[in-house]
């Protein structure tokens, strides 16, 4: 009897102890991720008070400002710029990753370490590095001068091409790492079969690999797009104020204009755009016909 009671209470205690870690994790994620997003959603309907932060209200003023030609232009520019950067990054990353997955294991590991290092590099550092590389005194134009191509060195930033270049650089490692699992699981027999039937490697790549990977390519472009939308430092360091994206304006409104309700409304808009995009990648489907998990 007492033994039974012991084991029963032991089981009860074990049960509650076992639940403690998941409960702790849920509380952490709920308290410090979901609740902040919830508060942000609430604040986006609040009334801005000049000189203070905000006061509770329910008004759509902050959202109505999106209809401003100025903010429509910002949104349009952010989306267009991010799409351009994402497409260029994937155009380079896809053949690169395909070649990488067919390279020796040692080469693969070297490239992965290198790309992870670049990916984790602070956007601040990437912005600073590119502004140096594009500067007059330390930039790539000095190389052209040394080669006798140019008379005088020049600065190439701030400008739109510089910003686009920076964003492609920023998203390239990300796209490679998104493409890598799918391409490395691509059945090698597939391209071998095409080769045996007489197709050249280039032809095989375009007529077999690319069509088979179509869904993966589309998903990757969308993910790279969302990733680039988050760029915050590069538009400020490599671009001019008209090139500031939604991410920059959100911070600007929150910190320098002290207009948290409007910043929150813009963040909610950005959140919706991103969620819709991620949902589309899920709808496009994770599985390609022959490729593995994307």
């Amino acid at each position, binding site marked *: 009897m007492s033994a039974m009671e012991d084991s029963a209470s032991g089981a009860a205690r074990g049960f509650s102890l076992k639940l403690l870690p998941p409960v702790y994790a849920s509380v952490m994620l709920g308290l410090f991720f979901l609740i902040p997003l919830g508060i*942000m959603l609430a604040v986006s309907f609040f009334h801005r008070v000049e000189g203070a932060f905000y006061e509770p209200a329910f008004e759509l003023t902050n959202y109505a400002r999106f209809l401003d030609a100025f903010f429509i232009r910002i949104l349009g520019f952010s989306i267009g710029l991010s799409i351009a950067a994402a497409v260029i990054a994937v155009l380079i990353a896809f053949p690169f990753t395909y070649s990488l997955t067919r390279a020796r294991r040692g080469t693969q590991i070297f490239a992965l*370490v290198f790309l992870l290092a670049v990916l984790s590099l*602070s956007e*601040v550092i990437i912005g600073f590095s590119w502004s*140096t590389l594009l500067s007059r005194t330390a930039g790539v134009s000095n190389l052209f001068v040394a080669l006798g191509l140019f008379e005088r060195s020049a600065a190439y930033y701030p400008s739109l091409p510089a910003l686009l270049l920076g964003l492609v650089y920023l998203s390239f490692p990300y796209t490679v790492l998104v493409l890598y699992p799918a391409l*490395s699981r691509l059945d090698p027999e597939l391209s071998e079969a095409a080769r045996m039937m007489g197709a050249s490697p280039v032809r095989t790549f375009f007529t077999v690999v690319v069509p088979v990977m179509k869904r993966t390519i589309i998903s990757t472009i969308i993910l790279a797009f969302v990733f680039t939308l988050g760029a915050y430092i590069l538009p400020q360091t490599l671009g001019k104020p008209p090139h500031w994206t939604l991410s920059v304006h959100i*911070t600007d409104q929150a910190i320098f204009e002290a207009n948290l309700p409007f910043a*929150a409304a813009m963040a909610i808009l950005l959140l919706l755009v991103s969620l819709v995009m991620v949902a589309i990648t899920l709808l496009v489907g994770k599985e390609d016909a022959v490729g593995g998990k994307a």
Partner: protein
Amino acid sequence: MKAIRVVFMIAVFCFMSAPILVVAGVSVNEKKRLLFPPKGFTLDWYGELFAQSAWFNALQNSVLIALFASALAVSVALPVALYLWQRNSVFGRLLFSIGLAPFMLPPVITALGLLIFWVSVGGSGHMAATVISHGVFLVTLPLVTISLGLESINRQLVEAARTMGADEKTVFFTVIRPLITPYIVSGFAFAFVLSLNEYIIAYMVAGFTVETLPIKIFNSLRYGYTPVMAAVAVIFALVSVVVFGLVARYGDLPRLLGAAAKDAK
């Protein structure tokens, strides 16, 4: 064909390393000027990082935040991954998706949410707020690595241990933990490096009082150039290469990044 492929890959490699190489060159300039190729050679700017209290303070903040935040990220990620692995319930999958979310969304969204949150509860401007914010933001990385580790465990092993009378705790500490330790360490390393480099959340939550190195660089960038910035950039790049190199050395990096298992290739 192979030649074209090699040339292409080398070209991409050059493009990706060019900015860092130029910054490395700039960081050894003898004078406090932005010149490349560098004039003269000195490593003094690297010393300045430790000698100038403003830079050293930022370095200390960054390392402290990264250590505590990545430990916190692992402490949250481990139960979520285990819970989902033990019972594939709807709640488990939901928790897992929430853990992935901060990383899928543009970080400025999380940053603004946390700014408003900390302003409301009164933690804004404290280092603890930055640590907690980074910890929750970076949960994704250990969550992904630990889940991969758990997937690789043969469930029959766990069954065998249970049959032989081991309780949950014993199974965890004698069977599961040793097998997933490399994945926990990788997750910690990934989160550590990313916390070191993270700007926008650290800036929004406590940027005016707790200066981390990325914040310090960006602030200095506005008020003029100093080669210490270049030195920090080089050190950060080296730290990342060393950390990920170690992960690759002691773990299966291709598998960690989603390639099929080694023996399948």
